[in-house]
């Protein structure tokens, strides 16, 4: 899981039925300098499935790849980035 900062949302008018109940966030991965020194640098943005309720400015744990679809169990879901936790605090 990478750490990402939420900067926005994507709204879909049509989507696959197994994605119902979630939202889609736009998040920027946080490089080390952003976590340790408060640098403004960010990684390349990605769209993340979320059902925990992250909002703009939230720091989230982004699960990517195969594991991102694990929470859907046997349901086939085309998700490769999943908001797995809302980070309260990072102690560096």
């Amino acid at each position, binding site marked *: *899981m*990478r*750490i990402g900062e939420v900067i926005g949302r994507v709204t879909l008018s049509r989507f696959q039925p197994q994605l119902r109940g979630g939202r889609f966030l736009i998040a920027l*991965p*946080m*490089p*080390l300098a952003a*976590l*340790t020194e408060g640098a403004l640098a960010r*990684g390349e943005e990605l769209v993340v499935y979320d059902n*925990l*309720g992250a909002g703009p400015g939230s720091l989230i*744990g982004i*699960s990517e*790849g*195969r*594991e*991102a679809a*694990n*929470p*859907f*169990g046997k349901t086939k879901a085309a998700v490769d980035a*999943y908001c*797995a*936790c*809302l*980070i*309260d*605090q*990072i*102690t*560096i």
Partner: protein
Amino acid sequence: MQLGRVVGTATATVKHPTFEGERLLVVQLQTTAGGPDGEPILVFDRLGARRGDLVVLTNDGRALQELLGPTTPGRWSVLGLPDVRS
């Protein structure tokens, strides 16, 4: 498996239910030359690694699923803490 350096810890109240009670570390992966490799990642730890420690990580999601259950979205976990790097 890859070496990484623990740069801190993370706390999360709202999280996937399989994460309940687990320690989350912030780890910077390292290249073979010892430089940073990509962005820092969140890693599950049951071994008690601390900030500054060098850790051996696995990105085998199946290994973590043995601990946290098959629906966990986590992937990286601490496999061990090497004594010396040679």
